[in-house]
């Protein structure tokens, strides 16, 4: 009997929080506007009413405070799940995240572990005004000690969040906000592959698109389109950036010999750079063409009016795939 129901990503995350709070007394949810209001994206809707002030509560307006308090609560046996209202509003918490959240396990030789989940509604595509659309994953992925998870599907949003909350290590949980209200079938009783495992969302013989979070559906759409043009593109959904699934990625790229990395963040010194660099290093002898990147430009996130030029789209991906030294070029 399948328990699949249609739900939005916001609902999937809400369900994960609800189930985690229900099953584990040590799970607490807090942040700005998460209680009475249920979050500006309604992700925590109803949880305060259902579980009360001791499990779900609003804090004063201070992100360093929120994350710093989470550190202490985790030291005292709790599993805090905190919300940063928008990507750019996590920056005030940067010192707490980099110098403490990421390092305390190491600084105590594992005596103190911090099971904290920092939820970050992130990336663009929602017509948001400035500071509301940053793709900030590189800052976290570069910081040793953080696990960085970026779900692309609603089932993963549920399953990966459950795993993140239940785990021992701090997790930056990147929620692609443009998918909050996208509906998909989700069966929460079916486990998803663990954090650290990438999934081949679409096999493909000619080239491999590597993506995560909000770029996965775009990559799939590109592959779809390519198929109609006679080119067979595979799509890998990384699901977690740290740990990174070299095995799955390299297996695919070695098979196809061509890879394009797709990500929304500015490309310079980004997660996309890392992927391109490691694929280049590990699959060199199998590559028929350089690993290419389709990323955001190296500019502050542009305004709603122009964001479609900035976001990696199907056309730009396919144009890039076209440059991958195909036989016909040589001929």
């Amino acid at each position, binding site marked *: 009997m399948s328990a699949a129901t249609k739900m939005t990503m916001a609902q999937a995350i809400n369900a994960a929080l609800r189930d985690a709070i229900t099953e584990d007394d040590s799970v607490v949810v807090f942040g*700005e*506007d998460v209680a*009475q*209001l*249920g979050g*500006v994206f309604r992700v925590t809707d109803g949880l305060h009413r259902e579980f009360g002030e001791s499990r779900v509560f*609003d*804090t*004063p*307006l*201070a992100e*360093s*405070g929120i994350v710093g308090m989470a550190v202490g609560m985790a030291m005292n046996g709790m599993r805090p799940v905190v919300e940063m209202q928008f990507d*750019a*509003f996590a*920056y*005030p918490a940067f010192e707490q995240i980099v110098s403490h959240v990421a390092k305390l396990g190491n600084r105590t030789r594992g005596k103190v572990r911090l099971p904290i989940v920092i939820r970050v509604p992130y990336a663009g595509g929602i*017509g*948001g*005004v*400035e*500071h*509301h659309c940053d793709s900030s994953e590189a800052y976290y992925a570069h910081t040793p000690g953080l696990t960085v998870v970026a779900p692309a599907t609603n089932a993963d949003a549920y399953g990966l969040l459950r795993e993140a909350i239940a785990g021992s290590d701090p997790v930056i949980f990147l929620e692609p906000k443009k998918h909050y209200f996208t509906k998909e079938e989700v069966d929460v009783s079916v486990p998803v592959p663990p954090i650290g495992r990438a999934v081949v969302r679409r096999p493909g013989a000619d080239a491999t698109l590597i993506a995560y979070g909000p770029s996965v559906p775009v990559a799939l759409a590109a592959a779809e389109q390519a198929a109609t043009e006679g080119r067979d593109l595979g799509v890998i959904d990384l699901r977690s950036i740290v740990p990174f699934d070299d095995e799955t990625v390299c297996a695919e790229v070695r098979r196809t010999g061509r890879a394009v990395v797709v990500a929304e963040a500015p490309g*310079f010194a980004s997660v996309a750079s890392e992927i391109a660099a490691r694929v280049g290093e590990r699959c060199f002898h199998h590559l028929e063409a350089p690993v290419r990147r389709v990323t955001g*430009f*190296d*500019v*502050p996130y*542009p*305004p*709603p*009016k*122009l964001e479609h*030029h*900035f976001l990696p789209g199907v*056309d*730009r991906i396919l*144009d890039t795939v076209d440059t991958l030294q195909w036989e016909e070029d040589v001929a």
Partner: protein
Amino acid sequence: MWRCGLSAGQLKAAITPARLLDETGRLVRGAPTPDAEALAEGYRKLVFARRLNEQAGALVRQGRLAVYPSSRGQEACQVACTSVLAEGDWLFPTYRDSAAIAARGVDPVEVLTLLRGDWHCGYDPNVHKVAPQATPLATQLLHAVGVGHAARLKGEDTVVMALCGDGATSEGDFHEACNFAAVFRAPVVFFVQNNKYAISVPLARQSVAPSLAAKAIGYGMPGVRVDGNDLPALEKVLGEAVARARAGDGPTLVEADTYRIESHTNADDASRYRADDEVTAWLPRDPLLRVRTYLTAIGALDDEREQDIAAAAEEMAAAVRAGVGAETVADPEEVFAHVYSTLTPQLAEQRAALRAELELEEA
């Protein structure tokens, strides 16, 4: 080196809101009589501010603005914080202070640029000495301190008016800004519009202090609480703070006791977190009503003048509709133009790639 003593009077000022006009529009006993003509001009600005709030709200509903955080109910704050400034002074506003920026003289159409969904602030900050509207909370307070400190170093008597909300007082940057200003004796007026909410979060979750103005004690500067719906009281308190700053006596923290009548923005639904009767209880304290009643009672405002003001406000609103409604062509290449003062080779390359794409599309 402790410079700030603490008198009983100072404490009282930081806790009990100053008031000149009461809720029925009558002068408080013992209060100085405001200059009628100046107050009538203030009333005109209040009406403009209200009209701008209404017009922007309408434009959001029509999809012509991406978002609008309304200052309805806070118009007296919006007007007072600019009317006390001299030409060379600076204003540091937030997303909620569009009406204050317009009151400062910036074309309201320019003011709404960011909220239309553009990436830039629309106006040239140097022309009217108005910083871009700040969204990351409390961060702009430090910029205000910097402008003030630089002015002092240069021997200029510039004063800086730095705005924020009650919620923003919880941020670390609020603390650092107050402290830097006090330590450097910077000519800054910190003006907190305590409208009782930070989106959905009520004041009680931001602070359990006797008042927000009382925070000033911890920085060694005066803190003054004022009725935020009482234009003459605001102008008096803010005016004194500006004078103090200009005289080289350092910063002041002013807290306005006011209320956000509408939702946080159009995207918000305040009924999810506050009762209607809380809102209704504030309506009689409307800042326009109060001044209007007083001016009418003293004979400084008659129907004709009222109509003139309304007509002028209508004109402004029409200009806003026209300006915001006008189709602007956003040039995608401009996204690269201002990131650095000269294009880096990397951005030149990326711009060229985008240009090639666009040309292909057009072809």
